[in-house]
């Protein structure tokens, strides 16, 4: 039992079980809302709100924001914001229960934490840009899209994983020795 407790922080669910639960959750989400899960949507709402706060009026004029600005009361944007808040809470709960909550930078041993943070920020920029361009990220487009057999969902999924596999070799120094 002690062994169990000590090592709990590095024990994750069996991936098939995790996938199974995620699949059931997706079904439940579709059953309740008629659409899938999302992660970037809430972020975008946050961006729009921030832009509006910092530079009032800009959001209205910007050709991109205006599309969403009119729909600021659009429940879907709010829905995704609430969902995102829930996600953070849920992840915290899980982490707390297994003792994984800790401020730290996780990085491979041969990479300094500063480097890791730089890489993370580059990746974030690309992901933010790409998810807007593709109308969805891994959860919104690829996962939820493919759950209802959307062609776009499968293409996005293939795009993300295919590209990552192809270029993985060139970035191997970042992750493995």
């Amino acid at each position, binding site marked *: 039992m002690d062994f169990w407790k000590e090592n709990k922080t590095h024990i994750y669910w*069996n991936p098939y*079980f995790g996938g*199974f639960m995620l699949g059931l959750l997706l079904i439940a989400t579709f059953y309740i809302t008629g659409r899938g899960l999302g992660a970037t949507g809430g972020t975008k709402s946050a961006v729009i709100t921030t832009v509006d706060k910092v530079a009032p009026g800009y959001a209205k004029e910007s050709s991109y924001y205006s599309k969403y600005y009119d729909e600021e009361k659009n429940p879907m944007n709010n829905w995704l914001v609430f969902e995102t808040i829930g996600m953070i809470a849920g992840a915290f709960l899980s982490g707390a229960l297994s003792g994984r909550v800790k401020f730290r930078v996780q990085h491979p041993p041969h990479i300094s934490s500063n480097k890791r943070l730089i890489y993370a920020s580059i990746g974030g920029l690309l992901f933010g840009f790409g998810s807007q361009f593709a109308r969805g990220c891994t*959860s919104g487009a690829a996962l939820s899209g493919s759950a209802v057999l959307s062609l776009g969902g499968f293409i996005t999924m293939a795009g993300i994983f295919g590209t990552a596999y192809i270029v993985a070799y060139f970035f191997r120094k970042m992750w493995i020795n």
Partner: protein
Amino acid sequence: MEELKRTRRITIGVIVFLAVIIIGANTIKKQKNIYKYLPQQMIEELILVYQVTPEEAVDLLKDTVSTVFVDLRSIYDYEKGKLDNAINIPIPMLLDDDNKKLFDTWKKDSVKVVFYGNDQLQANAPWMMMYQLGYTNTVTLMGGKEYMDLQMAGLLSENSTYETEKPAVDYKAILAKGGNNSKTVTTVAPKKTVVVRKKKKKAAEGGC
């Protein structure tokens, strides 16, 4: 980095998943009557011949082998007077098991089934439904029983017609003629047609 090696959860999950599917499969109600023609297909079928004229019916009545007349009116009306050799199936009883068996045999033997009511209207909707259910050997009788009676009794007047879809009068002429004795001047204001678009409950928009 380690993963839970204990996989019992998967088994439990899978069994629950399967159980739900099996329960679901049992909840499906078996449809007794299945439409062979959906509305969109039926609309094309309507162009085909689906009615017989009273003149044709006179000949068909003589042919008792390959034609059956089905009286869709109430038992009371049927008792009062029917076409020769007609079988009475009131509309509410059309889909009773016994009657469906009859229709099935008629279909198998490709017997022409002529539905009739007091007028063609009475037979039209039941005919359409039976046709959609796959009984394509059915037709309706134009003019219905009333017209047949007049025809047989030789009482047809100039005004009698079984083609109810033809304009009975020349509308334009009547309207142009207008009134003949009216003194009041009225102006008919056109009624505005406002179509209230039902708000389509759109599936929630996706985000990601």
